[in-house]
């Protein structure tokens, strides 16, 4: 998958490019409106991530340009403004998703995956790890053709882990993914733990393997190996 990051903050570019490269994405970046415009005109990307606040122009204006050069390209807008008006405007212009800064790279990764499956794979490819198969259409998990019942949240959690496998994912990152970007919900950290333990048990009971490891003070890591 080929991804273009349009972002003026060098540290954020570095972090995103670093992480997404390890995830097997082909990453490119542009730190100004002009550079981004040039790249969009010249190359084809599967997904473009656009920060709205660029030093030499509004990322908003890049959206129609991307759509014009390739209809297939998925567009995710990133903004520090958390403005509903911006969000609606961006989605109207043809963006597929909207994310507010500060975000977790895992969350962006999950969004990219979902977008990629929806747009490029039309949602019909199964996700496989070891002997487990996830069907994103019916949102089910099976082990050697036997279905394992998961709650909606366990399913979301599992997908989040698989997309971000081998990465230590923190509790707030998980909470934000499952419950959304709401406020004042430190309570949900307990719920993260509850869901996590249930999911871990279910995976363990069917396969005999412990996929989810606790990393002290940091969060949890999912390893398929």
């Amino acid at each position: 998958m080929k991804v273009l990051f349009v972002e003026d903050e060098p540290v954020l570019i570095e972090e995103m490019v670093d992480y997404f490269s390890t995830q097997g994405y082909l990453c490119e970046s542009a730190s100004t409106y002009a550079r981004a415009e040039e790249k969009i005109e010249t190359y084809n990307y599967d997904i473009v991530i656009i920060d709205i606040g660029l030093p030499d122009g509004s990322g908003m204006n890049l959206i129609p340009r991307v759509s014009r050069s390739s209809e297939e390209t998925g567009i995710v807008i990133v903004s520090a403004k958390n403005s509903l008006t911006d969000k609606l405007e961006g989605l109207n212009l043809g963006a597929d998703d909207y994310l507010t800064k500060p975000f977790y790279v895992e969350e962006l990764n999950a969004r990219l995956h979902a977008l990629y499956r929806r747009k490029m794979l039309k949602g019909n490819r199964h996700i496989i790890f070891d002997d487990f198969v996830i069907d994103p259409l019916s949102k089910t998990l099976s082990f050697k053709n036997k279905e394992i019942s998961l709650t909606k949240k366990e399913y979301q959690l599992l997908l989040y882990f698989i997309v971000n496998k081998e990465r230590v994912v923190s509790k707030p990152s998980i909470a934000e993914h499952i419950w959304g970007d709401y406020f004042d919900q430190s309570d949900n950290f307990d719920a993260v733990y509850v869901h996590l333990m249930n999911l871990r048990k279910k995976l363990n009971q069917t396969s005999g393997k412990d996929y989810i490891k606790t990393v002290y003070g940091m969060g949890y890591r999912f390893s398929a190996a």
Partner: protein
Amino acid sequence: MKLLTKTSLHYLCASLALLTIFGGLLFYLLKKDISAEIQEQLELQVDMISAEIRQGATIHYPLVDIVKTSKISPARFRDTLIYDHYQQLTEGYYALTETKQVKDEIYSITVLTAYIGWDEYSKTISYIFLGLGVLLAASGLVVNLLISRKIWRPFLMNLAVLKKHALSSKEELVLTGSDTDEFEDLKTVLLDFTLRAKKEYLGLQEFTENSSHELQTPISIIRARLENLGQTTLNEQSARYLKDAREALERLSKVNKSLLLLAKLSGEHFPDVQAISLSVLLTEQLQQLEELYESRKIDLKIHIEPCFIRASPHLVDIMLSNMLANQLKHSAVGAAISVKLNDSLIEFSNEGEPLPFAESDLFTRFVKGDQGKAGIGLGLSIVKKICLVHHWSIEYTYDKGIHLFQVRF
């Protein structure tokens, strides 16, 4: 008390006082004059009687009393009471007693004359003055009413406009002009005042929004770096430092996002207002928390009736999740929680200790109870603002160990 009532009352009091004083004065002067006149008349009568005695006539007049006496004493004019057979009551009379020397004899002559109905006089005077008072008051009232209709109109209209006007609204304040100087001055001052207040308000809001906005990027950078650091293998001490730093950053990020939202709630127009089913949104939110209720062994009572409102789903979601999170946060294990919804009201109640701070501070920013339970202290301010944006009322009561929040649409 209304201005009109107040001025009318004052006017009435003043009229009554003046009328009473002048009525009394009139009565007193009248009585004095008439008494003097009567005294003269009685003196004349005494003179005439003594003249008659001098001529040797026998005096037998009613209300005249003549006695022989031995010494001359000064004349005495006084009031006296005499019983009246006809009316069967005692009546007031003037009496003049004078001693006169006729030839060698000294006579004490007393003549009397009736008060000629002083009571009636005083009554008549009182009635006339009372009538005058009432008429003055009534005419004053009518004039006032007519004046207030016309002259006070711009003032009352402006008052109505001001009552409805919010500093946070983007609409300009439009006030009605008047040909009364004072009202025109008031209008100018008010317009100037609101303009300045508005400017300051917007400035403050802009400042909050801008500073929160500016903080988002550094927070993003710190978070990205810390998350990355978390991927590396750390010794126990470093891991602890990192954990603390991350938790603090998480908090900072939430506070900042909330402040940004609060600033937006004051200013921004919410473009996604639409008809939504509150019952559906609430059910979804409750499902999100299902496991938490279970793990905390909460005695949960839910009663949801269909409810459709016009609102921003984005904001309603935030409001519901804040209310539910607040409820849960302040409930002990096994406590009772209840959520009720009907077509005009949503209620959140939970068992718990009384508030550790004043009830009036409940919706104030950064007021929170137990630090250990560490919310960021903005949840309820946000809820209140969201209610304000939608013109809903929110009330809090605490009774018999139950905290109750009611939002009416």
